[in-house]
């Protein structure tokens, strides 16, 4: 018996163990031979013999199972070991591109206003004088047109200088109330360190019954919006002038670089200008045939937002497809 047990325990691999199994438990194995002796055992001793045999078998079986499990585990461990690799070599294999920071910023802005149930509207880039200027209270030769160097076509068409013509188109198509934003590409004839001939804007417009929409409403939504975009910033409104709004304001946030202390980026004022807004000028409503309404409008430059939010130093780099910049946004 001891000898048999040793055989099991000494098996050092699954193949040897299998041989031992056949030798012990096989049809022609040691145990089978023992059981075969049963028939020669006289009746009264038969029971005791059988019990002893069964007990031994159970002990051997248990030993075998334990040994098998042990060897199996060793075997797997061996396979696992043989498959070992230096995982740190492969970290660089993952390939992912990146969204453009300006487009990402635009999406974030859209998300905010869609969540507040603003409709998103769009319009053509090639516009006419009426939709881009006239209807927005910017008659020909108005000095405010100087602020917007315009690309003209030989037939008098022009590239929209802002997304405001989308507001005009929407109002001409639809009755109030209106709650919309118009994100899009716009063009100004200007090209230097801080200007590119093409950039992106998002404009917003809310129109409702007369007396319903006030400057105080504009303050509420823009303050909330700017804090959504820039985090915990102070928001300041300064009176300004836009032909299509009256009263008008420019909106500043406290400088996110120096927290209002004054730095190079905020020209040491502690404030960054980020938005223009105002109460829609009655002449704009007149141009689209709206009566007895009130409304507010605002507009912002997406590149400026993206540059501030991500501390991108060079505006023009945004239009160069430079992967060194883009891959930072993976």
């Amino acid at each position, binding site marked *: 018996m001891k000898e048999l047990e040793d055989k099991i325990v000494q098996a050092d691999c699954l193949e040897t163990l299998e041989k031992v199994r056949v030798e012990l438990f096989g049809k022609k194995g040691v145990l089978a031979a023992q059981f075969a002796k049963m028939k020669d055992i006289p009746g009264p001793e038969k029971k005791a013999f059988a019990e002893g045999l069964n007990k031994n078998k159970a002990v051997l079986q248990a030993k075998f199972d334990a040994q098998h499990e042990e060897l199996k585990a060793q075997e797997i461990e061996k396979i696992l070991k043989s498959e070992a690799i230096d995982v740190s070599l492969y970290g660089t294999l993952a390939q*992912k591109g990146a969204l*453009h920071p300006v487009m990402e910023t635009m999406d974030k802005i859209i998300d905010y206003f869609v969540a507040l149930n603003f409709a998103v509207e769009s319009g053509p880039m090639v516009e006419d004088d009426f939709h881009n200027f006239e209807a927005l209270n910017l008659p020909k030769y108005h000095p405010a047109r100087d602020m917007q160097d315009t690309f003209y076509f030989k037939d008098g068409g022009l590239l929209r200088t802002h997304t405001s013509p989308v507001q005009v188109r929407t109002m001409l198509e639809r009755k109030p109330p209106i709650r919309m934003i118009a994100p899009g590409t716009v063009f100004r004839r200007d090209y230097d360190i801080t200007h590119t001939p093409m950039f992106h804007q998002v404009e917003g417009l809310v129109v409702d019954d007369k007396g319903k929409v006030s400057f105080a409403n504009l303050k509420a939504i823009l303050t909330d919006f700017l804090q959504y975009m820039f985090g915990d910033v102070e928001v300041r409104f300064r009176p300004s002038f836009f*032909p299509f709004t009256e009263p008008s304001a420019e909106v500043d946030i406290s400088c996110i670089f120096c927290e209002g202390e004054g730095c190079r980026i905020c020209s040491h004022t502690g404030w960054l200008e980020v938005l223009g807004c105002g109460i829609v000028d009655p002449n704009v409503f007149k141009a689209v045939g709206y009566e007895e309404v009130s409304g507010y409008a605002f507009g912002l430059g997406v590149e400026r937002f993206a540059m501030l939010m991500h501390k991108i130093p060079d505006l023009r780099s945004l239009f160069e497809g430079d992967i060194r910049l883009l891959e930072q946004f993976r």
Partner: protein
Amino acid sequence: MIVTRSWLNEFIDLSNVSNEKLYETFNSIGLEVDSIKQIEIPEKVVVGKILSCEKHPDADKLNVCQIDVGSGTRQIVCGAANVVDAEYVAVATIGAVLPGDFEIKHAKLRGVESEGMVCASSELGLPDTGKGIMILDESIGELEIGRELGSYKRVADTIIELELTANRGDCLSVYGVARDLSAALELDLKPFEYKQAEKMKLGIAREAEIHTEGEMDADLLYKLATLENIDNNFLLQLRLAMVAVEAEGKLAKILAYATHTTGVILRAYESSAFTNGDNKVVVRLRVKEKGLMEVQGNDNVVSVAGVYQSEDTLANDDTKKLLFEASYINPDTLVEAVAETSFKTDDLYYKTSRGSNPDLEFGLRFLAYLMDSYSDINCYEGALNVNVDRENEKVMVDSDEISSIIGMDVETAKIVTILKKLDFDINIVSDHVLSVTVPLFRHDIKHIQDVSEEIVRIIGINNIEAKPFVFAEKLRLNDTIDRYKAKKSFKNRAVGTGFYENVSYVFSERALLDKYGFSTLEEELELANPIAEELNTLRSTILVNLLIAAKRNVSYSRKSIPLFEIGAIFGTKREQSEVISFIFSGQIEGENVRNAGKPALIDFASFTQKVGAVVGAFELVPCTYDNGLIHPYQSANIIVGGKVCGFLSKLHPTVQEAFDLPDTFIAELDFDALLPKHINATPISKFQGVYKDLSVVIDKSMNYYEAAKVLHALDLPMLKDIYPVDIYEDEKLGDKKSLTIRFFIQSMEKTLEDSDIETVMSDIMTALQNECSAELR
């Protein structure tokens, strides 16, 4: 617009207003402060009196001066030529530290002791007042010998640069800015009182007359004077330098100073330009097209009101008899007329086009005051004038309406106070209704919202409490939002596939588009004023922009360049559409241990796989697009939902070379064709199917899709899928090739039997034999 604190102080008492408060107030009333600069005059720079001035014994250009600096007399060597004319000067005494860390010490100049320096303005950090040293006079205040120059408020002034919005022509003068401040700071304006002593009893009518032709749309006021010895005081020169107004000559400086102060357009003519044969000054005013007004003298046009003055009629410092003119023309009329007549304009046009001060009397009075102080001038009594009866704009203002626009209760009394300070006339109609008369200089104010803007800016927007807008719920999801979402999901897939999003100008270079065979705008629809040659048209493809971006990345040593862009392109008639474009240049992946640092270059199959991962399932058939970027033998039409919606190609080797690129693939697809469509599910079979391969020999020139077309046309219900798995060519096959196609066969109704499979395969083979001249391999 640049103003200075002490200059403003002439009209409004700012002694209790700090610079910080000024800065804050300007910003809050909509006169944005661009910069604010406090001038600091170094200590130990004092007023000195020159007692004597002699040539330096050894240097022609130097003078040796004895100067009383209060604490004693100092000998100072001075190199400025104008020191000989000077009495009072600014002296930097020993120990003074001038800007640039320049300390004044005892010195010996060519053997002569010098104990200090006589200063020019720029040496003290002041703006440049012209050549030589500053010659001080009482215009800056009482001159006390030895007094620190920095204690003179008019010298150590604060320069404030304001960025004015286009509607605020009324603030293009020191007086106008002071008026706005007075409303915001609740301070009264100091009245300007000056009564010119009429030294000459001769009436102007004896010497001059005015004739008009046509209906006048401008105001003009003339005064005739004789002049001897004109001079400028120091303050005038210093202030003009501070506000960066340039003028040549003493008379011109005085005019510029008066205009900058009052906002009234002032000119001076040689009276001879108007003198006729009878020695009389005759001014003829003739209305020209579009309401412009010509001023004529002796049948010559000497000026156009608000536009320009001909140079040969400009009075100068030597003019003995001159005609002063103050003018005003409505900017709305002026701007339109000038744009349409394309007159040349002079420096004053900026002011006239934004709206100059119509109070001509004030302008001329201020000018006379200046002239009187610094020249020997004799004015003829009276003036010649033309006045248009202008009607002031009247606006009915309901304080309740103002409150509802602003979203805050504003009391009627408050509105009255603010508007009065801004020079509006008020008639109270009822306890909340006012009839407001708008002053002429505020030509931008036409209706109640303009008035509410005035209220808002003087109250200060920051004092308005924010209130959320309550609105009725309504579904606002629309096609544009759906499109944005679809675009975003394509973008995310592209990024997941390894592409970077590119954003490029919607412009392109016409010559480049032409060169590569892309369409261009019809000539008459082309951009009239492009900003640069390489951006002189609207693009008809994004691919050229992507090539340029790829080239740039190559120059930055990038080896693998995957870019995509979704954006607008334009047809020949300038019709706008949207495409999604891809470029993949160079290595197919990064260098890593798997590829032993030598990744393969991008190839047709891999590029197709990547594009497919972004845009979804498509078919490829031989390319029918025609442009210079396409490789004629590795290009394909992309078919989505049965329609050709774009192409995919290896970049043509000549273009590849022109852009210095490694192997490159491009694709451009119509974005609208890719928008998600509604899909209905088809039933799925419960029975097992089998895969079967078939290798056939066909003509080398035959494309797989032709064979596939034949098989699809069979429309066998059990033939569920067909796809190519191998292509083989060798010499033995000659002009033939072997194509292996795999089929998936499955029935909806039953488990397949061998006979079913055989039937399908034999139908396939027959079709291929008949229609494609295929042979079993």
